């Protein structure tokens, strides 16, 4: 149907009824004390694992994750904050795949995806992953395990704070995703299943 006819029909129906203004949200206040602890607690509550590291030992978390895996394929982006994980991957006898050069095929077979994240939100244990280069969509989506590194500077107290940041972005990538814990479903007999389509295991490293 023609766009203007579609919109005109709506205008006709609304007639001269008052066009309302939204007054800013008033009931929107969440208290967050100690955002670092709150973030960790919220993330663990939704089934994720929270880690803290300083720049020097950040790669240690990846060593922990791949320990016990046999020849793990690890897909890594070059986003800010993502440490060099070649040593722990080699130590586990694994294979390091670099995004985006390795392509989506690599994401389809990798056991672990390692990415950055723009922000973390203490109130809900959420991280925000961008599709903009040097990141992408597949590394945080296709592998069964996702490890995300986020700078402690990017830790925001509340979801409302996050959306204020998003409003202020000068331009957008094609996709921003708010990730709050690993993939889950209760559709089979109302019992919890993890890793249904997205990663079943999520590690977030807050880097000081």
């Amino acid at each position, binding site marked *: *149907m023609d*766009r203007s006819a*579609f919109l*005109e*029909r*709506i205008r006709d*129906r*609304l*007639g001269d*009824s008052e*066009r*309302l*203004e*939204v007054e*800013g*949200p008033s*009931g*929107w*206040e*969440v*208290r967050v004390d100690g955002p670092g602890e709150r973030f960790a607690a919220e993330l663990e509550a939704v089934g994720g694992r929270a880690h803290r590291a300083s720049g020097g030992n950040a790669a240690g978390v990846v060593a922990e994750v791949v320990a016990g895996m046999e020849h793990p394929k690890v897909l890594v982006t070059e986003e800010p904050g993502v440490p060099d994980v070649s040593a722990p991957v080699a130590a586990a006898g694994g294979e390091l795949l670099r*995004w985006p050069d390795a392509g989506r095929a690599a994401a389809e077979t990798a056991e672990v995806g390692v990415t950055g994240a723009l922000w973390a939100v203490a*109130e809900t244990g959420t991280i925000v992953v961008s*599709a*903009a*280069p040097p990141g992408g*969509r*597949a590394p945080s*989506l296709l592998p069964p395990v996702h490890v995300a590194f986020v700078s402690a500077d990017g830790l925001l107290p509340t*979801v*409302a704070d996050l*959306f*204020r940041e*998003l*409003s202020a972005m000068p331009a*957008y*990538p*094609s*996709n*921003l*995703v*708010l*990730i*709050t814990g*690993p*993939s*889950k*479903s*209760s*559709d*089979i*007999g*109302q*019992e919890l*299943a*993890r*890793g*249904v*389509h*997205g990663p079943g295991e999520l590690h977030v490293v807050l880097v000081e």
Partner: protein
Amino acid sequence: MSAEYDYGKGFSERAAVSLADPKLRANLAYVNDRQISSRIEAMSSLKDPDALRDDASRIRSAVLSRLDEHLDRLATGWESHGGTVYFADDATDATSYVRNVALEAGATLAVKSKSMASEEIGLNRALEDAGVEPVETDLGEYIVQLAGEHPSHIITPSIHKSKQDVARLFSERAGEELPAEVTPLAGYARTVLREKFLSAGLGISGVNFGISGPGALCLVTNEGNGRMCTSVPPVHVAIMGMERVVGTFDELAVMLALLGRSGTGQKLTQYTSLLFGPRRADEADGPSESHLVILDNGRHKALGTRFQDALKCIRCGACLNVCPVFRQVGGHAYDPVYSGPIGAVLNPIIKGPHAAGELAHASTLCGACTEACPVRIPLHDLLLYLRQDYAGRAASRSERIAYSSWARAWATEGRFRVFSQAGRVLGALTRGRPLRRLPLPLLSRWTRGRVFPGFPRSSYRKRRT
């Protein structure tokens, strides 16, 4: 195992099917109770949930009052990101557009993330007719699709299926016996559907909210199938009911806080995808085409009427869980798409007034739905208006005569006394017992699904004086 619901017949016939299914009723009671208690608990994590509901209600009302402006801005914004917008008048218009997109993309397989709008327009059938296989990827929807059924709940479409039912369905498809345990069953679905995601030529999703300011779409899922459908196939089509818009990210934040809490008791759903058109030239992955279909399908007729508030709905399903009628009969007794109190109100908007009469009466008007609604839709008022419209339009002659005589009989104190006397006589004749069956065709229809309370032997006034 799965009951047969005939949509050529009436609500009471379908309700009878549900009522005769003890397993369904046990599932419903269990799930509805859990959904209610997790909603209440999640709401209590907000400092002032009622104030936030007021905000949400105001935001939705304001958006509807300027819907033309918001849709215009959303469409322009989506196009500026490189996306395509199609305004669809009705189901046929929308399905033929999606079918053309699929055919032009050369797709023979389409993966779908849960979308009530696509159910509403019968998209799966239209795609099948065009030689495109649609595969539902939300686990609940996948189960329902394998069973050849319709979703029975907005949020939890397979609420009527037990673990054993799912094991039977999956085993049949797999050609081997799968255990009735969640982990292997979910693992099986993951493997089958992963293959579909990677080979599909088209990804189809619904839209939880369009955000007109930034020209973005928001889609929430817990499983990640929303991300899959909008990221992996080369072409993405999003279908949005035209009322599903907010203006800004600040407004979206309020809606998401309530949607997660009301729907599933979550502060935020696991994956909240914000989409801004197709993949950019410098991005490594994502669809190269992103189509947005904005669907009217009768909705404009509710604008400017007392049913406009129904369009505030954010599809959380809270009104279903608390409804004493839904809790007994489940979604299938209502309508193949939208069920529960909100379904009774939406169906006449979408399908026309003929869909109004019966479902509006499938309610006790207790107001639990209104109480639960996060955006404060006065659902039980709307149900009452529907009954009014129905009475003015479609009530039978005998029903009209009966009610107008009733009104006349009770209009003065003298006549009221006479009728009270008649009640006393009836009370004596029936010994004050409740009546399971009333005489005369009109009255006996009333008692088909109800018990008429007994006539007391003395009147209330007499007992009080």
